[in-house]
């Protein structure tokens, strides 16, 4: 027999209060759940003001679009670890910014072709350097969307180089070997006359590539065949050993990304290969050395070839598991449309992937790239951030003449990314300069490693070549 349970006064109050609260808050909760979100992860930019600008821009963009935008920042050295974790969890940010071509993540990211086409329709062509860093010709997939690249010039101390008869700094790699002993002789307090890293870090990766390319060697050819083992690469390695003897000490074997900046600003070195970050830091900290830092383009090799990597390249990827891919794409398009602000917020550190995005809105599309390039040349020729002399940054405006992509003369691809991420080239140079291996041994060792990496990615159908691989 069931007994009908009667509701007492207390239960009545509880129930009605609960029901009223549910009715009142329900729409709020529903609205909250329906609120679109966009999660962005990128590096802690070396110019703090850029992050301030970007975070505000993203917030304001979200407010205008009715999207809740979150921007998280991490150190550049931790980007790959974080990306691996997000892929493993199949969960994370909608937009993930890499600082070198993320070829190894190609299977995990959306094709950006529509976005690139639309950006080109609005601002004119993407520069070739960025295209070759974000497009895989084998799969015909745009595995990233680049908004910027950062030039990697040589930074030198003018007073020191003037004393040894080279007031305009070095022009060739051989100049470094010539200058090293002279700087040591004139300035014994400068412990590392030539501050180029040969350790497992970003700057060393870029510097050793610049050396290899300028000696007409490369990891792969234009058709993605592994051609590292060559007379040219051997010459580059032997040169690296001479350079080490002439102007370096073992400190360069344990350098991190900040070491060359610190060494230059403390006048412990007279030449580094870096972005303008060391110089801007000196300026910001009002160090007297700032006025003594000048820039040169990439150095020429023995046959006049002159190449350097970009220092970093901002490349956004949208994961396949991203929750808001459309919002992410729209955000990137709108970001490109505001790129003059971005360049200024970065104190001329970020150079645009779409030069036309720097042009005034009123400029016709066909003239935008030239107008944007002109604006950048003017900005670097008359630095608005207090350079002395104001045209000090002019050499970096020529970066597109001597900056090339990781993977040169071929495209960036997953194999090149893995070679980059596993620091094969800096290790190869370090093996020689420490005497651990002879140059031919180190070259052969690196070549075999590279071949294994390429074969792995070819088996996955993401890299071409193979028929022309050297033994």
């Amino acid at each position, binding site marked *: 027999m069931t007994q009908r349970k009667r509701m007492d006064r207390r239960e009545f109050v509880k129930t009605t209060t609960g029901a009223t609260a549910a009715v009142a808050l329900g729409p709020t909760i529903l609205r909250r759940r329906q609120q679109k979100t966009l999660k962005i992860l990128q590096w802690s930019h070396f110019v703090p003001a850029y992050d301030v600008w970007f975070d505000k821009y993203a917030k304001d963009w979200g407010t205008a679009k009715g999207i809740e935008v979150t921007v998280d920042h991490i150190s550049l050295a931790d980007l790959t*670890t974080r990306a691996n974790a997000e892929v493993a969890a199949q969960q994370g940010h909608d937009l993930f910014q890499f600082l070198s071509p993320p070829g190894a993540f190609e299977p995990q990211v959306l094709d950006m072709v529509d976005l690139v086409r639309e950006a080109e329709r609005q601002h004119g062509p993407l520069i070739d350097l960025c295209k070759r860093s974000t497009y895989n010709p084998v799969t015909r997939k745009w595995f990233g969307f680049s908004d910027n690249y950062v030039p990697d010039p040589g930074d030198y101390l003018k007073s020191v180089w003037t004393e040894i008869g080279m007031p305009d700094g070095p022009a060739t790699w051989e100049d470094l070997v010539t200058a090293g002993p002279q700087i040591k002789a004139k300035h014994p307090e400068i412990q590392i006359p030539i501050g180029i890293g040969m350790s497992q870090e970003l700057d060393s990766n870029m510097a050793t590539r610049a050396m290899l390319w300028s000696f007409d060697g490369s990891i792969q050819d234009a058709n993605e065949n592994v051609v590292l083992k060559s007379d040219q690469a051997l010459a580059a390695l032997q040169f690296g050993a001479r350079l080490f003897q002439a102007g370096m000490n073992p400190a360069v074997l344990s350098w991190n990304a900040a070491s060359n900046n610190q060494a230059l600003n403390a006048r412990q070195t007279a030449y580094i290969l*870096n972005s303008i970050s060391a110089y801007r830091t000196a300026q910001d900290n009002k160090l*007297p050395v700032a006025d003594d830092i000048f820039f040169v383009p990439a150095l020429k090799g023995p046959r006049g070839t002159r190449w350097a990597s970009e220092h970093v390249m901002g490349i956004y990827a949208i994961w396949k598991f991203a929750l808001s891919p459309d919002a992410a794409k729209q955000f990137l398009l709108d970001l490109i449309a505001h790129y003059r602000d971005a360049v200024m917020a970065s104190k001329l550190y970020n150079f645009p992937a779409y030069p036309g995005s720097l042009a005034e809105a009123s400029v016709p599309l066909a003239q935008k790239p030239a107008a944007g390039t002109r604006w950048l040349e003017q900005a670097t020729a008359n630095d608005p951030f207090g350079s002395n002399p104001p045209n000090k940054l002019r050499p970096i405006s020529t970066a597109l003449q001597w900056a090339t992509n990781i993977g040169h003369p071929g495209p960036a691809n997953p194999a090149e990314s893995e070679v980059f991420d596993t620091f094969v080239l800096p290790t190869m140079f370090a093996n020689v300069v420490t005497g651990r291996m002879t140059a031919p041994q180190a070259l052969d060792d690196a070549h075999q490693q590279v071949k294994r990496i390429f074969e792995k990615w070819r088996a996955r159908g993401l890299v071409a070549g193979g028929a022309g691989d050297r033994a």
Partner: protein
Amino acid sequence: MKRVALYAAALGFIAFAGFPFYWMLLTAFKQNRDLYVGAFDTQHVPWIFNDPPTLEHLRLLFGQTDFLSWVWNTLVVVVAVVVITVAVAVPAGYSLARLSGRWGESLGMGIFFTYLIPPTLLFIPFARLVSLLGLQDSLGALILIYPTMTIPFCTWLVMGFLRSVPWEIEEQAMIDGYSRLAVILKVAPRLIVPGILTVVVFTFTLVMQEFVYALTFISSVDKMTVSLGVPIALVRGDVYHWGALMAAALVTSIPLAIVYNLFIDRFIQGFTMGAVKG
């Protein structure tokens, strides 16, 4: 003469131990132009203030970063992980040392070996687990994962410690009428207080300095721990903000140093007692 040598050695050790703190203190208050000094300036003395001290780095640390939130988050995680570790490792260590006979020793070593697996190998499978549980980007992820590092080592530590405590004391308690459970809850903890304190300090230290898992599981700046937030905010690209970094290191290491010094005798006892064959 012997006494002079003793004092000299002690002073040497004090200087060795205290120098990092002095260096942090100095760097935290030095002006940047005093930190980055040219090699040309041979008059500059690096271990003193050559220019007047500045609060600029502290202003950066406390005014332009979420440092206090990171300290709070770290404390929350530390307390939770310490509680979990003690609650699991002490009974586990006791069981393995006292109740499982010959198998206990081997099992204890087996558990200890899991501690030796580096986080760089484990973070990917853990990422999947954390995602599955919906704990991504929350302190809960760290509270879940950190005990997997601390419990194996602490269990082994407690086991070693218990080996040095005579079993007869607990046996006597049981003769006097205590049940096994009562012995575990009331008698054993009193016998292994130094061991438990060692577990606490060890866990505290490990959690304070952990980086890889924090990086993997936490992405929101306001949810970061000190070990993650500080390098992310103060190492910008290839530029290190040394003054603020040293200030952060100083502020967080002082409490740790105090904890260590308060319990130093028991801590040493905790680590060394198990090493003596009973």
